[in-house]
């Protein structure tokens, strides 16, 4: 009798604990593989690790070396150039396409599919394609010559001053359709009656877009910028496929810098330090965003 009762108690206890048991593996993996690893990486960044990890505290030596490294500053500057152009142009093309597509277009579905398909491709594929198109000898340059523009030269891919802009070209091609999708969803969410009222008041379409529709898309701008800057900071594969970081290290981004110092040049500590810098950059952008998202979730 009493064993039966305690068995039932155990069963109830198990039932009650079941949800926690089920999420426990994910919880533990998250703690170890995300937060534990971040701490581990942080620790590595405070050591003298080179080819092999060492765990003796060495203070900020790796950060000092990082900040004294010219290549790191090239990477940081490139991120700034690439990031701002990538975000700006993607937003511009994305908004424009979304507005045009929102004019009761006949083949909207097909056009949307075309604009968005690059998003399904790997950055390696995109990089490979654009590397060929922008090929200084046989690519765009040859095509323009054939079309009669004999003076046309296009050698950005091998020009260390201009190569970073080829990364922008390919990146924009891949991601602007996605921004279009975000804004189109936003446009569809706007109440038609506001627009009708403005039209009745005699406002023209450009005016309506400028002073009513675009301001009301502020949250979409917010998400799009967050996502695009996140893509920019993490950009790695596109550069690897398109320029390999070259010529020299002219198109290095923090992500390619980290990879090459941590995994090919045997500078674990410095690689770890540069990864911490990337984490810091992402956190500066994402934490305010997540904070507002989570707050609105709780309210909702």
């Amino acid at each position, binding site marked *: 009798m009493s064993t039966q009762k305690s068995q039932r108690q155990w069963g109830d206890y198990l039932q009650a604990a079941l*949800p*926690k048991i*089920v*999420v426990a*593996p*994910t*919880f533990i993996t*998250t*703690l170890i*593989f995300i*937060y534990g690893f*971040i701490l*581990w*990486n942080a620790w*590595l960044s405070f050591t003298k690790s080179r080819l092999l990890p060492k765990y003796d505290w060495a203070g900020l030596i790796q950060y000092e070396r990082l900040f004294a490294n010219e290549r790191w500053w090239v990477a940081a500057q490139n991120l700034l150039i690439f990031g701002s152009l990538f975000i700006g142009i993607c937003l511009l093309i994305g908004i*424009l396409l979304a507005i*045009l597509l929102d*004019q009761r277009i006949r083949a909207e579905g097909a056009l949307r*599919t*075309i*604009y*968005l*398909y690059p*998003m*399904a*491709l*790997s950055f*390696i*594929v995109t990089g*490979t*394609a*654009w590397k*060929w*198109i922008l*090929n200084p000898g*046989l690519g765009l340059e*040859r095509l323009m010559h*054939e079309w009669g523009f004999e003076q046309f030269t296009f050698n950005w891919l091998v020009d260390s001053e201009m190569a970073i802009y080829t990364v922008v070209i390919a990146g924009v091609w891949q991601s602007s359709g996605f921004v279009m*999708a*975000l804004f189109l*969803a936003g446009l569809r969410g706007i109440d038609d009656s506001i627009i009708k009222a403005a039209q009745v008041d005699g406002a023209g379409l450009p005016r309506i877009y400028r002073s009513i529709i675009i301001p009301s898309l502020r949250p979409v701008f917010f*998400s799009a910028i967050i996502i695009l800057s996140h893509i920019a*900071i*993490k950009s*790695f*594969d596109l550069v690897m*496929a398109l320029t390999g970081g070259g010529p020299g290290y002219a198109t290095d981004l923090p992500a390619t810098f980290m990879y090459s110092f*941590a995994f090919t040049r045997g500078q674990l500590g410095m690689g*770890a330090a*540069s*990864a*911490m810098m990337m*984490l810091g950059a*992402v956190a500066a952008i*994402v934490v305010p965003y*997540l904070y507002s*998202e*989570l707050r609105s*979730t*709780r309210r909702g």
Partner: protein
Amino acid sequence: MVNQGQSSIFSRLAVYGALSLAALYFLTPLFVMLLTSLKTLEDIRSGSLVSWPEEITFEAWQMAWTSACIGVDCGGLKGYFWNSISMVVPAVVISTMIGAINGYVLTQWRFRGSDVFFALLLIGCFIPFQVVLLPMARTLGFLGLAGSIPGLILVHTVYGLAFTTLFFRNFYIAVPDELVKAARIDGAGFFTIFWRILLPISGPIIVVSVIWQFTQIWNDFLFGVVYSAGDKQPITVALNNLVNTSTGIKRYNVDMAAAIIAALPTLFVYFVAGKYFVRGLTAGSVKG
């Protein structure tokens, strides 16, 4: 009136013109890739990006698949394609299953701390993976999984969980509480409710999660290049090696054929189930 009609026809034309131009911009690279992959090398050297092939040949495709040199191994992409498949399938299935049950707990069986758990997990969507690369490399070595496909499956599963959980959590949160409460009163247990009530309505979100994970993992390069070696590399890494090998003649037609082969699975998924793909993109980025 007439004037207005004319100007509206004109502006319609302008809108369609701009949209077609944009379509051309997005399609041209794919078209150029396809065209180049069907040409011979001489044809490429004498023609231009958009010139029609003198004769259409599938030699480059054949070579990319079976005999192109990737590093020292000249067996084409074939093996790497299968590497990617054997990495993607388990990783997608496992991460989607765990994500589904996590989402179920986080919405229907909330406990003290479950919100904190979700927030901790959500942040995991955003970290730049560079920050876990080194510790993970040590861990995989310690587990004896370095340079192997099971190692990649583990990595992709672990770092995919945040997204799959997010998908299912945002989907199940719309399920009315009464449904699950009534089932609980009827004595249905944890797993019964999941199997009988939640799972049968989960079709769309399972598709979203599978497509998202499939695309992400298939297209991944970072984990692939860091955690795999030799003939165990996924296709994106092999493609990059193939294209950026500096020895021998540059076979642009083979490069393009290889790039299309690497892109085909995700392109196929996109054209078949684009609607779900877009849902994944927006759910993964903007709160659903």
